């Protein structure tokens, strides 16, 4: 059984402008010790999916439907105070902006100690010892001194390490990282990703890595789910998704990525996906990607394609004939490989 299994998740927010369907039938699985990369544009429901797993979308104007099976427990129907016991201890999360994610008025050691003591009734000095250990584990120099630092005294990379230490100090089964490197310098990004990967190896944590950066996915993920307004349109192992993608949206994502190999000419143009991401209030009928899809045909605006198995472990939601999809995808994967794109890392 999968560690975390999200099944047909639907999250809606009632707003003044109408009902926002932030997540609309998303299905995902996270395996122990593996990394699931969730990719998609802004507004594709990546973050809302993650926050819903944490129970952080339980707002008065929100409705959540579907199932989130974590280690056999359905988190969707769980009372808030029971869900709170999972949050932070068995499922932890780190956020995009480490600058604003730590409380500016408390010392970082105190903040980690608080996380420990929220779940385990250990004495203060024991918790402090574990917090210190966690800071050392994430590679913070002079960790004992840093315990008494305020967040503003640390660099962005150090703060994100503190966030990771805080998330992992209770040895959670699942770590959700929502764009953990987007706000960081490129050199620091790689360090943070390495850190997450090495900690995952030692702890056997299942990681959900939310990103819009296919390069990060190529480097870090074992499995990939591509989301487009609230749905998963394609999912499978990273080699399949980046090497032979089958959904036109994934093709678009790949083609709009720059490649940095020496052979790639400067004259090479990126091909952005035409059109705008759809409104989450007025989602296009049928396949939501059809207005932007160069391959759309008569069926696409009428019937929404289900997410179905295309090849072993590789699911796609598209009406195009599988043979055609696979041909285009393989071609694209080869081109990517040839120009030193993301597929080869």
């Amino acid at each position, binding site marked *: 059984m999968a560690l975390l299994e999200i099944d047909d998740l639907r999250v809606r927010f009632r707003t003044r402008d109408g009902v926002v369907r932030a997540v609309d039938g998303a299905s995902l699985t996270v395996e122990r010790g593996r990394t699931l990369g969730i990719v998609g544009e802004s507004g594709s429901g990546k973050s809302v999916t993650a926050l819903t797993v944490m129970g*952080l979308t339980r707002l008065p104007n929100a409705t959540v439907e579907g199932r989130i099976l974590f280690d056999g427990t359905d988190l969707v129907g769980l009372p808030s105070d029971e869900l709170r016991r999972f949050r*932070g201890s068995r499922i932890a999360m780190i956020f995009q*902006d480490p600058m604003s994610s730590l409380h500016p008025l408390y010392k970082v050691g105190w903040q980690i100690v608080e996380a420990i003591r929220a779940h385990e009734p250990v004495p203060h000095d024991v918790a402090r010892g574990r917090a210190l250990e966690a800071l050392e584990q994430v590679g913070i120099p002079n960790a004992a001194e840093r315990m008494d630092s305020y967040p503003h005294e640390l660099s962005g990379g150090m703060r994100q390490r503190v966030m990771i230490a805080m998330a992992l100090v209770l040895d959670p089964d699942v770590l959700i990282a929502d764009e953990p490197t987007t706000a960081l310098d490129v050199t620091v990004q790689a360090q943070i990703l390495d850190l997450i990967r090495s900690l995952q190896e030692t702890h056997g944590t299942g990681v959900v890595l939310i990103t819009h950066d296919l390069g990060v996915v190529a480097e870090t993920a074992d499995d990939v789910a591509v989301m487009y307004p609230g749905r998963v349109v394609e999912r499978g192992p990273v080699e399949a998704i980046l090497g032979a993608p089958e959904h036109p949206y994934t093709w678009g994502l790949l083609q709009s990525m720059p490649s940095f190999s020496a052979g790639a000419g400067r004259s090479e143009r990126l091909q952005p996906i035409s059109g705008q991401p759809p409104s989450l209030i007025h989602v296009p009928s049928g396949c939501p990607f059809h207005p932007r899809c160069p391959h759309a045909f008569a069926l696409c605006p009428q019937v929404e394609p289900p997410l179905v198995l295309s090849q072993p472990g590789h699911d796609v939601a598209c009406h195009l004939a599988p043979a055609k999809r696979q041909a285009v995808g393989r071609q694209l994967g080869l081109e990517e490989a040839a120009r030193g794109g993301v597929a080869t890392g």
Partner: protein
Amino acid sequence: MTVQAANGTTNAPRRPPPPGGGPWALGSVVAGALGSSMTRYVLRRVLWGIVLLFVVSALTFLIFYAFPSADPAALRAGRQATPQLIEQIRHALGLDKPLYEQFWIYIKGLVLHFDLGYSYENNVSVSSQILSRLPATIALTLGAFVVWMLVSLPIGIISAIKRGSAVDRATMGGALVAISAPVYWLGLIVLLLFSRDIGWIHLLPGSGSYVPLTSDPTQWFLSLLMPWFVLAAAFAAFYARMVRGNLIEVLGEDYIRTARAKGLGERRVILRHGLRAALTPIVTMAGLDLGILLGGAVLTETVFNIPGVGRYAYDSIINSDLPAIQGTVLFGAFFIIVANIFVDVVYAFLDPRVRY
């Protein structure tokens, strides 16, 4: 008086950093040179405060002479005063000397003897008058402060959490009314409702019933109840709105999401993480307001006829009693300046990001 900039540097002229990296060298400050830089900062502020007090007294002097409400000498000479008598009184009070000389004499007395002069009205020393009236003002101010904090904090917190609910709308609507109601009007209404002499319900001692705490604690307490609530009303309303606004803003911060993601209980998230951050600016405000009120809550003391510093200021203006006006104004300015310095220092303890 406006809120001083939190970093405190805007108040002081920029000078080149002193040798050894002073409060201006940001890196060394972060490294923990708090003690010395803080002392220097406070010293600088105190010096500026003294300069400010000097300016305030000069301005009061000028205003009094440029816009005389009445001739103090004529006022004291009585109804059928001869010009000779007025002239005599003017000479006795030193009002016939040139303005700068009068000011010089005043400042000399103040600096050398801490002497605020003698009232034109009754020849009593102004400083002893103010000091004897200070307990009443302190009692009024601190009591009102307790009331407005006890009222505004829970209301602000609840309406921030239940934003848009009936409770929120009702309390914030009520707050708007309370902010808009002038103290003298509210005071009279409350007297009309609850005072023992003229009230519809004979509940509490009315205007002019204040006695010192030492002579009759019960009477003291009862006589201050109405003034406390009247003075606190507008502040409570203002603070409730501020607590609500700040807390709503803070609860939208990323670090509140982090606190929830840690699995903390909602109460702890709101109080320990949300309120802690939301209160920092409110503590600043409260310090300044306390300073202003300690200089004399003129309206409340006048309406309820409490013999405090504010009432003294009011009386001395009515009587064109320059030394008393001068004394109460300086006294008020003193408290405001002290409150400002105090608040800036406290801020550095409340918010570790602030360093001087």
